[in-house]
């Protein structure tokens, strides 16, 4: 006996398997137990979900319906087909035929066996529909769990990550307001306020984009763009966040890199990568950004000389809320959304982001984007 391990509902699986076993015992005239299989039909493809028979039963297929004339006929007519090699019984689905039971071997079935088969097909139909319902419920439960987690992580971000720049803004504003700040420091206070306001705006935008991605999905607003211009703008926007010992090194071809892309989203992707490079190189150093392209794709590299990470853990960086927190990095604030969103944005454009990194030698994030 064989049952499809991808049918996740055990009760439905057993029901289908028992029904198929019963079908295999509708013996031929010479008293042999036959091979019986059950196939589920999804967009013209038949996938075996249960099999039973005298031999060590292995699943057959998958088949395209057009490959097997008898299967195709049973599905299109909704009638039992007996072609001497198989008896094929259609199984009712949500709308129309949802699968078939195939009994192999020559020597047709008598009237009583046919009636029994029709009953077996009804049981299988019930099992398949139940399995589909359970799967749907499982997906729904999984989705709710994700949203629940999203909600609690957002509360956590609001409690910590949003409060931190807010505290600084309030503090400087209060000193400007009550005149307690020495005059020479007014410029500093204003630039810190503006920096922290930008940080809050980026945080809120990352939260909203993540929420949208989870619920409705992001729809790109595509237009002809010059990738170099987007890179330049992202660098310009992030320059105020650099420490005194950071500096940008930009290397790129001088020609425009024409692409069709979502300018705002690509800017978010790049500012998130640059923000990450600045945050995780607390001792400063060069942040190198380079763009290359050929006819098919553009490659943007963002490289820092910071603390780096273990290459085995690198993939965790791109998971939602995935932050690698060690005693050395625990004080660095972050939401775990920046790199996740950056990669989702690259992927929505048909590209991707990967990372090469070693502890102490910094990280290089590689963005590839297809060019139209």
């Amino acid at each position: 006996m064989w049952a499809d391990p991808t049918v996740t509902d055990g009760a439905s699986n057993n029901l289908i398997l028992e029904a198929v076993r019963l079908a295999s015992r509708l013996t031929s005239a010479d008293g042999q137990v036959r091979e019986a299989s059950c196939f589920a039909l999804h967009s013209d493809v038949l996938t075996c979900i249960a099999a039973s028979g005298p031999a060590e039963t292995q699943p057959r297929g998958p088949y395209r319906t057009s490959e097997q004339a008898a299967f195709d006929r049973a599905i299109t007519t909704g009638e039992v087909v007996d072609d001497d090699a198989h008896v094929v019984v259609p199984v009712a689905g949500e709308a129309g035929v949802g699968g078939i039971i195939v009994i192999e071997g020559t020597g047709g079935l008598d009237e009583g066996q046919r009636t029994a088969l029709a009953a077996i097909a009804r049981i299988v139909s019930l099992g398949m529909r139940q399995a589909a319902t359970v799967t749907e419920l499982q997906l729904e439960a999984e989705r709710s769990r994700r949203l629940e987690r999203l909600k609690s992580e957002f509360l956590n971000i609001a409690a910590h990550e949003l409060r931190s720049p807010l505290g600084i803004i309030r503090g400087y504003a209060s000193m400007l307001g009550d005149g307690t700040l020495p005059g020479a420091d007014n410029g500093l206070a204003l630039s810190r306020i503006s920096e922290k306001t930008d940080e809050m705006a980026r945080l809120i935008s990352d939260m909203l984009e993540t929420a949208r991605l989870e619920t409705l999905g992001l729809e790109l607003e595509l237009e002809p763009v010059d990738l170099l211009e987007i890179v330049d703008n992202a660098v310009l926007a992030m320059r105020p966040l650099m420490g005194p010992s950071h500096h940008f090194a930009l290397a790129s071809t001088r020609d425009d890199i024409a692409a069709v892309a979502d300018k705002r989203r690509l800017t978010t992707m790049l500012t998130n990568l640059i923000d990450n490079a600045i945050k995780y190189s607390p001792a400063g150093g060069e942040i190198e950004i380079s763009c290359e392209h050929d006819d098919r794709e553009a490659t943007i590299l963002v490289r820092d000389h910071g603390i780096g990470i273990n290459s085995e853990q690198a993939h965790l960086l791109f998971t939602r809320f995935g932050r690698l927190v060690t005693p050395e990095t625990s004080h660095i604030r972050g939401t775990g959304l920046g790199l996740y969103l950056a990669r989702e944005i690259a992927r929505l454009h048909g590209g991707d982001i990967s990372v090469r990194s070693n502890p102490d030698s910094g990280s290089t994030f590689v963005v590839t984007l297809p060019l139209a």
Partner: protein
Amino acid sequence: MYRLRLVADGYSVVIGHDGREGLRLATDEAPDFIYLDLRLPGLDGFEVLERLRGDAATRHIPVIILSNYGEPELRERGLRLGALEFLVKADTNPAQLSESVERSIGPRALPSV
């Protein structure tokens, strides 16, 4: 930011950028007062507080926790470990910070961690 205000109010301030530096400054500078953040590289603020309290040389120095966190459990833990007050950064403007130190020691020198 807090330093600017404290200096303007006549205090002298030294800053430790991580837990270990803070502990070293607490011993070397023998400050009158310590502001302690919780999220620090290496040693976190609670560990720093425990060590300050465990060392005869620093045991008597008043400590106020100044953090981005405001959860009641953290507040309770900080106070249990001997912090004088627990201030949340977002709710504390620099003037209030200066007042908090005046409440305990009056205008003099203080390092913060």
